């Protein structure tokens, strides 16, 4: 039982350190951290503990924590709730759209897509890069398999 508690505590502490030491600790970096943690903790388990239940717990824990992190980091609903709790008691929908959503969410995603080489901006026009086109073809196939007509 102690091993479960120690492993979880280690996960939280190491993640805290990583968030301080790594510049711009994004979801992608957290994902890499979880993968490294999962490999190391199971390597330790395989050599010292040899506990199958510990392995299954770590698998479920890692997946659940990724799911939780993705929601807390990216969800628009979470952003609205925390903004209202920490900032203003009430806010106009249009103001929130202009100041918080359009600038800090929508434009930020566009910037991320440009930085990651999916989108190209020439003058005022946006294009898909060859990498973006490749991903679009993959998304189209997956969306047709899952009968998704529109996303958003």
């Amino acid at each position, binding site marked *: 039982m102690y091993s479960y508690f120690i492993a979880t505590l280690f996960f939280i502490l190491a*993640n805290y350190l990583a968030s301080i030491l790594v510049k711009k600790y994004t979801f992608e970096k957290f994902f890499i951290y979880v993968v490294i943690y999962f490999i190391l903790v199971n390597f330790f388990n395989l050599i010292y503990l040899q506990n199958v239940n510990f392995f299954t717990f770590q698998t479920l824990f890692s997946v659940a924590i990724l799911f939780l992190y993705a929601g807390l980091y990216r969800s628009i609903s979470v952003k609205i709730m925390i903004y209202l709790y920490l900032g203003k008691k009430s806010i106009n929908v249009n103001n929130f759209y202009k100041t918080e959503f359009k600038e800090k969410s929508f434009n930020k995603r566009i910037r991320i897509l440009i930085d990651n080489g999916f989108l190209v901006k020439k003058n005022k026009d946006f294009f898909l890069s060859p990498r973006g086109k490749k991903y679009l073809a993959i998304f189209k196939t997956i969306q047709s398999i899952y009968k998704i007509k529109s996303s958003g």
Partner: protein
Amino acid sequence: MTILLIILLSSIFTATFITLHLLFLHFFYLKKTIQILIPFILSNLIIIYFLREVELYKLFYDSFIINLAVLIIYIEFLFLIKTGFTLSIITLFKKKKKLLYKELIKNYANGKGAKWILTDRLNKINRLKIIKLNKKITLTQLGHFLSIILIFFRKILSIRDFG
């Protein structure tokens, strides 16, 4: 060796589960949650049925926890392709090769527009009685309580920014 056998069992489960889910998706018109839950239960039952007379039966309980993890990953994947914000921006280029910034905003989510995603999420949390939504947005008591929990988890996971 035991861990490898568990992984093998869960791999068989994953293949069966995804196949059944796709079959349900294309041939039955059911609610989305049921379309996922029935294949999940059926795939587990199929595994139990084939393992009942083999030694591997003992490993099913461990395999089931991995299967739950697979279910979480699968649901997350489905959420991503359905409601993924960034992915939706890329899919805007299905019809047009070049778009202006204004067109990106206007055509987002199949022409619903970028504001739609905000009003959609606001309506969803309004239905759950987390916020009160008139012209202004305000948190309800439930919203306050949930916000505290969310902030607590964000602190534990050292999340400082929004993506």
